[in-house]
C-alpha cells in the first residue's frame, strides 16, 4: 500500500495534498496517510470523509504520528 507522508504539512495544505493524491487513484484503492498529531489528525480524516472516501483505520505510531488508512470513494 502506498503511504502519503503529510507530516509537517499544515492545514489545509495537508488535506489538499491528500485529496490530490486520492484523485490519482481508482475507486476502491487504498492508501495510508501519515499525519501529525493535533489539528492535522482532527481535521484531515473528517475532510476526507466529507469527500466521500472511506476511513478504514487510524492508529498512532511509535513516534507519536498518526497513520490513517483510507479507501478511495466514488468520483
Amino acid at each position, binding site marked *: 500500500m502506498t503511504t502519503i507522508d503529510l507530516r509537517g504539512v499544515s492545514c*489545509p*495544505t495537508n488535506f*489538499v495534498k491528500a485529496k490530490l493524491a486520492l484523485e490519482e487513484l481508482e475507486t476502491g484503492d487504498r492508501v495510508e496517510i501519515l499525519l501529525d498529531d493535533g489539528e492535522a489528525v482532527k481535521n484531515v480524516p473528517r475532510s476526507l470523509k466529507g469527500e466521500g472516501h472511506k476511513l478504514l483505520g487510524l492508529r498512532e505510531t511509535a513516534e507519536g504520528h498518526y497513520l490513517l488508512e483510507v479507501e478511495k470513494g466514488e468520483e
Partner: protein
Amino acid sequence: MALTDSQIERYSRHIILKEVGGKGQQKLLNSKVLIIGAGGLGAPIALYLAAAGIGTIGIADADSVDLSNLQRQVIHFTPDIGKPKVISAKEKIQAINPDVQVRTYQQWVSAANIMELISQYDFVVDGTDNFAAKFLINDACVLAGKPYSHGGILQFVGQTITVLPGESTCYRCIFPTPPPKDAIPTCSQAGVIGVLPGVIGSIQATEAIKFLLGKGKLLAGRMLTYDALEMKFRDVTINRNPNCPICGENPTITQVRDELELLTVCDLEKP
C-alpha cells in the same frame, strides 16, 4: 502535468472544492479565454480569471487609459494614464499570477479580425461598451459555435446572459437588430456607477469558470438583470427565437459584418 507545490498553495481554496479539485484546476490552467474590452467590465473579468489560474488570457482593446476611466476600471491605476489598456491590464494580470500567459491585441474587434481571434479560445467574454461590438461578438460567436458571456451596463443597471450557440438563446434572439444610432444614451453620455461593472463582470467571470469546469448551471436561456439603485436581481427566462436572424430557422446573417452606423457610439470619452 502535476501541480507544483506553489500552485497547490495558490489554488488550495479551489482544489478543496468538490466541483474543482486538482483536475478542475488543471482544466482551468489548460484553458484559453478571450476578453474583449479592457474597461469597466474587462477589469474584474481579467483580474478574477487571472487569479483563478486561467492558463491563457487574451485581451483586446485599442484604447489607452484615461483619467475618467479610473472611477470604475479597477485594473488600471493612476500611473497608467496614457498607457494602452491591454498593456496596463497585462501588467496587473502577470503581477497577480505569473502562471497566466497573456496575449494582447491592441485593436478594436471588427468583421475583419474577429473570426480568427475567437478561433484561438475556448470561451469569449464580452466586456465592450457599445452595441456595434456586442452584435459583432454575438454574430461571430454564434457562427463559430463559440460559447460566450454577454454583459452590458448603463447608469445603475446591468445585464448578462451566457450564450451557447445552437443550444441557447443568443443576443439577437432577444434584440434582432441594433437600436438606431443615438436612440440609447451611451455610457459616457449617461454615466455609470463605478461599482456596477464589478458586479456584472464578476458574474461573467464566474460563468467562464463554470463553463470551463463543466460544473453548475450556466446563465443560458436566462437574462440576469441587476438594478443597483433598487438593489434587485431579476432572472428572466428567454427562449430561443425561431425568427432570430442568426440562429433561427431561416438565418439571414451568414457572415460577420460591421454595424457601421454604430461604430463610434460609445467612443466619446476620448478628448
